[in-house]
């Protein structure tokens, strides 16, 4: 069961992830298959996943109290897939597939809806239009704690929106909070290229049209920080600072099911 209704509906344009995927699907057929490849994989939870903690809204109860709010720091699906693991290409000057360029003109929306942020992790390219929106009937604010970009904290009245662009990329996702509703938290991934994604509810991810050759992936999760260790096919693999080197081939690579032990999330 999808615990986060609306989060991974492919029709929703509010999700960068979906946008990127859709764009990737479109361009794949036209690009030269020799130079580009796909990477995919899946993150799962090793051990018994903790029960998801319900958050009891204590503010604007008539609006926020209607929805079941959960602590989204660690979201593990029924099949132990870990959602919201961030995967992006660390190299900043990586060659971008020509047809992916237009993804940059799409808007990325981080919506305050039902007293939570939609999506929980937003993926943004530098220079891309970023819209902070409030679809709720109560006021929200979005306290964006970027490191390389100027931090901002705007009040977004009900039905309103604030748009901005971020010019520098961020090496780790930046935290977004709502001070009015302190339980609300989201993350913002800002990269100089479109090669960034977040795992779906089942823990799977896919990045298409990566340039062939060696690349360095950054693996990150909000509770675990850098994902430094996981098990693939029973074999333990250590990745210092969550930086995994991969070699992209036109045939595409599959990292397989990467099991992260429960211990990594107890920090």
């Amino acid at each position, binding site marked *: 069961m999808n615990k986060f209704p609306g989060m991974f509906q492919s029709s929703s344009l509010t999700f960068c992830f979906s946008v990127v995927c859709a764009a990737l699907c479109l361009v794949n057929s036209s690009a030269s298959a020799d130079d580009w490849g796909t990477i995919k994989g899946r993150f799962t939870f090793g051990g018994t996943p903790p029960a998801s*903690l319900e958050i009891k809204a*204590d503010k604007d109860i008539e609006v926020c109290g209607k929805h079941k709010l959960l*602590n989204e*720091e660690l979201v593990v699906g029924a099949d132990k897939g870990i959602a919201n693991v961030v995967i992006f290409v660390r190299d900043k000057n990586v060659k971008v597939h020509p047809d992916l360029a237009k993804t940059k003109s799409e808007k990325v929306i981080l919506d305050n809806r039902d007293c939570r942020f939609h999506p929980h992790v937003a993926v943004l390219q530098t220079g891309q239009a970023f819209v902070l929106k409030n679809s709720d009937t109560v006021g929200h604010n979005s306290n964006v704690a970027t490191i*390389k970009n100027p931090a901002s*904290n705007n009040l977004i009245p009900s039905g309103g929106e604030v748009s901005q662009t971020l010019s520098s990329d*961020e090496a780790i996702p930046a935290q977004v*909070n709502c*001070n009015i509703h302190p339980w609300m*938290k989201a993350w913002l991934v800002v990269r100089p290229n479109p090669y960034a994604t977040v795992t779906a509810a089942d823990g799977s991810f896919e990045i298409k049209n990566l340039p062939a050759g060696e690349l360095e992936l950054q693996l990150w999760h909000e509770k675990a920080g850098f994902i430094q260790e996981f098990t693939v096919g029973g074999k333990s693999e250590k990745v210092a600072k969550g930086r995994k080197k991969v070699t992209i081939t036109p045939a595409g690579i599959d990292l397989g099911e990467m099991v992260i032990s429960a211990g990594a999330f107890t920090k």
Partner: protein
Amino acid sequence: MPATEQTWRNLKALHVVFAITSILLLISTIAMLAIDHNRPWKKYQREFRNLETWSARAAVDEQDSRSYEATTKLLEEKLTEARTAPLDSAIAAQFVIQAKTDPVDAVAVDRVQQDIDVLASQQSASERLVLRGDLLQRCRDIAKRARYREELAAGQLKLRKAEFDKARADYELGVSDDAAESELAPLLLIADSKRAEVADAGLINQGANSHRKNLEGLVRQMVAAEESAAKLLADHRQKLSLLAKTVKDRAPNVGKSLLELPVLDAFNSPLRPDQLWLPQLTLNNNFRDVARFDRCTTCHKGIDKSAPGSPDEQAYQEQEILAVSLPTPSSKPIGESAGNENNRLEDAYGFQFSPRGLFHSEDSMVSVILPGSVAAEAGLAVGDVIAEIEGGRILSQSMAFQSLLETLTWGKPLMLSVRRGVPQPYTSHPRLDLYVGGSSPHPMQSFGCTICHQGQGSSTSFEWASHSSNTPKQGLAWHKEYGWFNNHHWILPMLPQRFDQSSCLKCHHQVVDLEPTERFPEPPAPKLVEGYHLVRQYGCYGCHEINGWANPDKRIGPDMRLAPNYHEVAQSISIDPGLASASGPVTRWIDEVSSATDGKQARERLREYIDRDAASGNATLSPRTHQLASLLKEPETPGTFPKVGPSLRHVSSKVGFDWLYAWLRNPTDFRPSTKMPRFFGLWEHLSGKGLEESKLYEPIEIRSMITYLLNASQPFEYVLPFEGITAKPDIERGKKVVQVRGCLACHQHADFPDAKNNHGPHLSRIGAKFSGTKQGSDWLYSWLREPNRYHPRTLMPNVLLTPVKLPDGSISDPALDATVYLMGSTENWKPSDIPAADSLVEQERQSLNELALLYLKDRFPLVQAKEYLEHGIPADVGALMQGDERLLTGMMDANRDGILLDYVGRKTIAKLACAGCHDIPGYEDSKPAGAALADWGRKESSKIAFEQVSNFVLGQMNSASHHAHASHETSTKHDVHGTLHDADAHASDAGHADALPHSSDVNKESDENSDTPVAADLAYAAGSHASHTTPHSVDPDTGYFLEKLLGHEREGFLWQKLRAPRSYDYKKTENKSYNERYRMPKFPFDDKQREAVMTFVLGLVSEPPAPQFINQPSIQEQARLHGLVVAEQYNCGGCHSLEMDRWDIRHKPGSLGEAPTISDYPFLSPHFNEQEIAQSLITDRKGRRQSTLRGAPVLDEKTGTPQMVDEDGVPLTADDTESVPHHLFMLYRDALIDGEARRVGAQNLLVPKDALLAGTEYRGRGGDFARLLFPVVIADEKQINPNVKADDAWGWLPPPLIGEGKKVQSSWLHRFLLNPEIIRPATVLRMPKFNLSSSDSSSLVAYFASVDGADYPYEYDPRFEDSRLVEAEKSHPGHLEGALRIVTNNNYCVKCHLLGNYAPPGNLKALAPQLERVHQRLRPDYVHGWIANPRRFLPYTGMPVNIPFDKPVSQDLYSGSSDQQLDALTDLLMHFDGFAKKNLSLDAYFKQQPVAPEPPPSSAANVQPALGLSAIEEKRVDLQELITTPPSPSSPTSEKLP
């Protein structure tokens, strides 16, 4: 008598005599000349001249190096390039058009046009150069001719004006002569026509003027490029020529050498003594003040020299050895300059050697360093001598070349050992920004040297200048080198280095003005200031008055005296039985005088009342009360310092006999960190009878003191617990209360090792103090609730602990919880070896009798004294008797012990001057018991009783070195205070004379114990002591003091007095009575603290120089200084940051990233002037720029320690060695980096760690407790809300008070400090209520205003005016209503803020201050800015930007621009009360149902009416929760107990 050839004397003999005397005269003349020629200071002057010449030459070399030539060439090329470039066609065309407007130049203009065309098509550069030159010349000629014509036109204009003036004058003359109209008309006509001519000429002139200006402007534009290139080149060349000139001026030449020849040098020699004449800074020469002549600069010629281009960097620093790691190129460089080693060196590293060294010709001395080169970045500097390379000594330059260019592993850094600086006396003064420098506060020309350093300024030789050695070793070296000796006859010898800060006190009477300031962030006199604070903390002034006033108009030094003890007097009076009949106001007056706020008026009235009573004839009040009344009168210059110890007025309500006994016997036994000194058991100097007496009498003295204290103790009313408490007291909850409710801001406790503040006592064993008595826990509870009930002036504030509703619904009393926790904190300490409280054994009784007799003997003849002791004092005699002896009236066998103990106790307390630190009933009028210290620094050593202490100290040290190894372990413990084991050591050592403090110091430098004959005749006669311990045989510091002690100098006396005050009784107890012994207790100082105290005391000389030299701060600065003293007294900085950290970083350009572009309200833009911007763009030799950051490093939310990140801002892991470490820094003041402003609140700066290492970090003032709690409150909140944002936690903690002066209104702050209200509901602790006097509060308010440069005491802002609203309403109808719509809209302010009786429901942590009270609290300007962008004022705040700068919001609420909306909100908040009163009800504005108005406060003992049942009551519960913020994470959302 016939004339003979015979002479009176034998001529031959006379010739011989004459010849011999001539020769002698010649020899002596020559000798005289030779001695004069060879005066030592001349040598120094010559050497210094060489040094100066060398530095100038090095500067030339640096300019002259190959890079200089390269730059010259480059600049020349640029110039040629500019001169051969084609003219800017647009400008040229403009010129032609402009020039053509004047047809006179038509021909010339055509020619110009032709030339322009030719030039454009000309290929050859040389041709172009000529052509262009001609062309420009032609253009200039045209402009010149235009100027000529303009001048002609101006001349014409002048002429016409003159004619017009004449015509007008003619007409006016006509008018005044009453000429006929017919005569006047033509005159008027002429004047009119002349006026028209003037107008015409004016037009022509204007035209010519603008024509010329245009032409000249265009010519300037045409040549702009080449002129700037030419200027760069000229500047570049001038630098060198200036330097070359300096070299020429400095270098010796034939003329100078001639004048320095013997004999000739008596006349106008370039070498001559330098002299500073200081007529104002007089020197007291035996009762006569004479002008001061300082000739120190004769030898110390470089003392005021600063490095080129810097006003305060030393030109010549003192020698030191540095380690430098010099990176090498990856492979051996191959260059054309193979032959020249210096050039190769420059190629490889960017530096060169001087052809020969300065002080030693073979030295490898660096003379050139290219800016930005490897050498510059490694930290090499011009003048450095390379002493070692990779551990190998470098003896010549060829060796250095070899090691640097041949025999090395390329690519691997070389480790160099570098000697930097120059030897004495050539060095420059340290801190030229502070001393000696021309722009410093103490310029050499006006202050000279000896006013600070002392010594004999008029002397030009080392030995007679009274230099003072800092260690015996240095003295010895000086003796060998200069024949130095300790000149006892000069009463003002130079201060040794260790005490050089003492002199500051002559002019800096407030002492706190020597703490770091904005201008001088580097502490100016840290040791002295530490000494001052120690004197304050340990309350030395309780016994030793330090009176800073010679008379009420003349300040002579620091003033440290006890404040008048009105409240003690009032409390004493309050129990006078005679008051029963007094009328109402009297009791009120007494209460007011007893209270902290010091009711001045009440005091006067009370005194008058008592005086009237005394004079009335049938007095109802007791004689004691009459006596005390005089103490209520305010002295002319009252002291200001409180007694440092706790009040003992109600001591029996608090502690019992056992604890008191243990405490008095040795305070460190119970509390190792106590500041209370030790009075008893100081026996190490005693033996025989003296020791015997001490052992017998001291226990009796302790018992008797306790008897008196408990007997005299006044009754105390305990605070009763709150009613309605349903939760049982809980130790864990209590621990949390102690942790978060503020205790740790002042107290330490073993359970919280990170809390380091020691403003209040250590609490780890506090339970053991109170467990001895029945009421101990009641007392502790009362103390926690209302400390001022026990002591109205106590520094312990009321932390306002009120009942808290726990998550399970029960009500707990945090004070009760804390009490049970603290009562359990004992560390298993118990009083041990305590005698029975209520009975004396025979031996004790005998000692008691003996002691009593000692006192009685002082008062009565021996026989009578014995009689009184035996039978007591008869009632009739006692009734008339004054003094303590009255206590013996009616003594009988039954009450004998008790009465004698009481009597002896009273005497002992007086003897030991306990009332200097404590409020003790019966001692309200006691006077300080010790020697006054106001001029102790000048006390003549002949007036100091050294007694036999030298023998004692030497004996002690000798025996220590005999078994140094054996006693090492135990004796080191003496110096370490603070650990519990120490207490045991102290206790067990108490009776052992051989347990020696400082014996660990002995033999530290055992190689120094060569007792040379030279040492023997230095300062003291070592031979007279049959010992082998000398100042040279011990460590240098001890040696220094030992030398001073043996030489009977005051430093030595003071040292030993602080180490072992009673040791001056050594071998003296045999012939003095027990009560005549020295009484000073031993303070628990370590060596460093002792020296700091000495620095302060030695500086108390009471010799203020002329008023213009005394530091007289401005009114604003004065306010800051007063505030600092008060803030320290109440430990404001324990919780709050009063000043943020300051980081003066030195960074590589661009290494802090680029400044982000931010669009915000223009009035929030940072302001930096051109000069500051230019300054921030200067790159130093090491290729770094300097920036000043003020703020705080971002803390890790888990550990609370500063967070380290990599260059991307990613937190560093412990094992990460690859990433470049950076600090994350939160700015609290706008900074300027690389010429660009960085704003507060925009983003955290990523500061490379090396930029901070290369710069300086100055820690701010205060805020430790907030930092301590930061991770704690985050962890607590995470249990409720895992998504909490770390920055938000700052909003729950004591806020930094940066900008407080500009933020709040003075009157509000004054009231708030006296009676704090709740401002931010989200805080985990409340601002406590301090027992401040009204003037203390004023001082603090003035402090904040002064620090921020805010208006004080009254502030004006037009926004306060009601008329403003009328105007605003006119221009924008519905101005305030619109604002109120925004405030109350569901999206905006009331989302988080309290407003009136409306409280937004939800988590306490997200609640914001009451808006209704903003108009009382905040300054309008602050409110305006804050609403615009809160983060600009508090970078951590969670308050969002509600009204963005460029996008006005919700027009349906308030239609208008962003600025209008801001103004409206500010106006509303600043006039909220008036507005609210006018608009009857707020209800309409709330979509939600407002809560019911609050019922009147419940009368039942403060129990919170938080237990209601109805829905409305429930809502009010939330509001009440705010007032009683639970210390532990408990909020409406939490389900379980924390």
